[in-house]
C-alpha cells in the first residue's frame, strides 16, 4: 500500500510574486517525509498544489499515472479519494458536530450502514483520543482538539497518501509527542505515504524517513533524514539546528553586511543525530531503515554521540512510556 508522488519542475507564482521554482522530488511510497522551511516559503501552497486546490504555473504532480496539474476535474475528484488531508486549522464543518464531521466522507462515498459508520468513526475518534467529545460542535472545542478531529476525518477513508499541515502548531509538547508517535504507529499500520509540513525541529529530527527544505523560492535539499541531519550545507544546518548564524535572516535573507559580520564566528558543532521514533508495539515499519544505515552506505561520519537511545533531544517521555501511546 501507499503510492509514490512524483513532483517535477513545479513552479508557482501569485501575480508577480514567485512562490517557488522548479521543485522536483519524489515522495517514496509508504515513507514519512517532512517538508520544512522558514515562514512564508510556500509550504502550505505546495501542499495545496499536491491535491490540486492550486494549479501550478509549470510542472507536474503524478500520482498513479494521473497528472494532478493537468488532469480533468473528474479525474481530480477520483484521485483525491486516495488522499487524507489535515488542514492547519482542522477545517471542520462548523455546522456539524464532530461525529458527523468524521462520518461525512463515509456517508458521501460509501454505502455503509449507520452502525458500520458508527464503529469506524468511534475507532478513529479513539485513535486520536477524542472519545466523549463526539457530540461537540467544532466551535466549542480547543484548537488542538479540532486538529485531532481533523486527523480522524482524514483517516476515515483509509488514505494512501496523508498530507498534514502543521500538526504541532497550537499543541502542547506532550500532545505533540503523542501525535508524532501516532504518525509512526499509523504509518506502520496502514503503510500510507506521509507528507508532514512543520516548523517543529524536534519532530523533524525524530519522526521522518525523509526531510525536504524549502528556502529562498526553491527546494534547497530533499533526501533521507540522516543525509540532512549530517549535512554541512549552511542553510540546512542553520534550519535543522535552529541557529541564528547562517544565511537565513529575520526577513527571508541576510544582507552582505550581516553575513560578513558573522564570517568569523565559528559554527557550533553539529548535534548528534537522534534515534528515529519506533512504532509503540515494537514491530518495525515496512520502510524503516536501521539507524546509521545511510551514513554507512555513503561513507559519512555522523556527529559524535549519534544513534544512542539517550541522545540529546530524543523525546524521553514517549520512549519511557510507550504503553501510554493512544492506541
Amino acid at each position: 500500500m501507499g503510492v509514490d508522488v512524483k513532483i517535477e519542475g513545479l513552479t508557482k507564482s501569485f501575480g508577480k510574486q514567485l512562490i517557488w521554482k522548479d521543485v522536483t522530488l519524489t515522495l517514496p511510497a509508504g515513507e514519512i517525509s517532512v517538508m520544512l522551511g522558514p515562514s512564508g516559503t510556500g509550504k502550505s501552497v505546495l501542499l495545496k498544489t499536491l491535491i490540486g486546490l492550486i494549479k501550478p504555473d509549470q510542472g507536474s504532480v503524478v500520482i498513479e499515472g494521473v497528472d494532478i496539474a493537468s488532469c480533468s476535474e473528474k479525474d481530480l475528484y477520483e484521485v483525491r479519494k486516495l488522499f487524507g488531508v489535515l488542514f492547519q486549522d482542522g477545517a471542520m464543518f462548523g455546522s456539524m458536530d464532530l461525529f458527523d464531521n468524521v462520518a461525512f466522507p463515509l456517508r458521501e462515498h460509501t454505502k455503509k450502514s449507520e452502525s458500520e459508520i458508527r464503529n469506524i468513526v468511534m475507532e478513529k475518534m479513539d485513535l486520536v483520543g477524542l472519545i466523549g467529545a463526539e457530540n461537540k460542535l467544532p466551535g466549542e472545542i480547543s484548537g488542538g482538539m479540532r486538529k485531532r478531529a481533523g486527523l480522524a476525518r482524514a483517516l476515515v477513508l483509509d488514505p494512501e497518501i496523508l498530507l498534514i499541515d502543521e500538526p504541532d502548531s497550537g499543541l502542547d509538547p506532550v500532545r505533540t509527542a503523542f501525535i508524532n508517535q501516532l504518525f509512526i504507529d499509523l504509518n506502520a499500520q496502514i503503510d500510507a505515504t506521509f507528507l508532514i509540513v512543520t516548523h517543529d525541529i524536534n519532530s523533524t529530527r525524530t519522526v521522518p524517513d525523509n526531510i525536504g527544505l524549502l528556502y529562498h523560492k526553491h527546494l534547497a535539499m530533499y533526501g533521507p533524514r540522516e543525509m540532512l541531519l549530517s549535512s554541512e550545507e549552511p542553510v540546512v544546518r542553520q534550519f535543522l539546528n535552529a541557529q541564528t548564524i547562517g544565511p537565513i535572516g529575520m526577513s527571508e535573507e541576510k544582507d552582505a553586511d550581516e553575513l560578513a559580520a558573522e564570517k568569523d564566528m565559528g559554527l557550533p558543532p553539529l548535534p548528534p543525530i537522534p534515534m528515529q521514533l519506533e512504532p509503540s508495539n515494537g514491530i518495525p515499519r515496512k520502510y524503516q531503515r536501521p539507524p546509521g544505515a545511510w551514513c554507512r552506505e555513503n561513507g559519512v561520519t555522523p556527529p559524535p554521540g549519534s544513534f544512542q537511545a539517550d541522545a540529546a533531544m530524543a523525546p524521553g517521555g514517549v520512549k519511557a512510556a510507550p504503553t501510554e501511546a493512544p492506541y
Partner: protein
Amino acid sequence: MSSLTAARVLKPIGTAGSLFAFGLDVGRAVFRRPFQFREFIQQAWFIASVTIVPTALVAIPFGAVIALQVGGLVAQFGAQSFVGSAAVLAVVQQAAPIATALLVAGAGGSAIAADLGARKIREELDAMMVLGIDPIQRLVVPRVLACMMIAVFLNGLVSIVGVMGGYVFNVIIQGGTPGAYLASFTALAQMADLWQGLAKALVFGLIAAIVASYMGMNAGGGPKGVGDAVNQSVVITFLLLFIVNFVMSAIFLQIIPSKSG
C-alpha cells in the same frame, strides 16, 4: 503604468465573465446525481423563514401606495372603476417580483454569501473538495434551487397581500366601491401577467442565489473578506435585478400585447 490601468479597467469584465462561468457550472451540476435533497429542504426552509414575515410586511404598503397614487390620479379622469385593475397590474407584474427579489437577495442571499464565505476562509470548502466532494453540487445547487422555489412562492404571497392591501386602502380610505374594485380586475389584467410575474420571480431568485454563492465562494482575506462579499453580493444583485426586470418587462410587452380595456 498603462498596463496597470488597463488591468484595473478590465477587471470588472473578468469578474462578470467568471460569474457567468460559475452560473454555467451550477447549471451543469444541477443534473449531476446524487441530488442533495436534504440540503435543499433545509435551505428552502431557512430562506422562507427569514423572508416570509418581512415580505408580507413590505407587500401591504406596496399595494397601498399604488392604490393611493393611482386612485388619486384616475379619480381626476373620472375612471375610479379602473383602480382595482391598475393595482392588480402593477402589483402582479412589477411590485411582487421586485419586492420578492429584494427580500430574497437582502435576507436569503446575504445569509448564503456569509455562510459560504465563512466556509471559504475556514478552508471548509477546500476540505470538502479534498474529500472528493464538489461544493458546487453539494452546497450551491441546493441553495440556488431553494432560492428559486421560495422566490416563486413569495411572489404569490406578495401578489395576494399587495392586492388585499390595495383593496383595503381603496375601499376604506378612498371610499371606493368594493364591487367595482373587484370587478375591474380583469379589465386590464390578464392571466399572462401572472405568468410573467412568476417567471420574473424565478429568474430573480436564480440571480440572487448565483451572485451570493459566487461572492461567498470567492471571498478572501479573512473575516473582512466575508463582510465585503456579503456587501458586494447584495449590491450587485440589486443592480442586476433592476436591469433584468427592465429587459424582461420589455420582452413581455412585445410578445404579449397588453389588454385594452
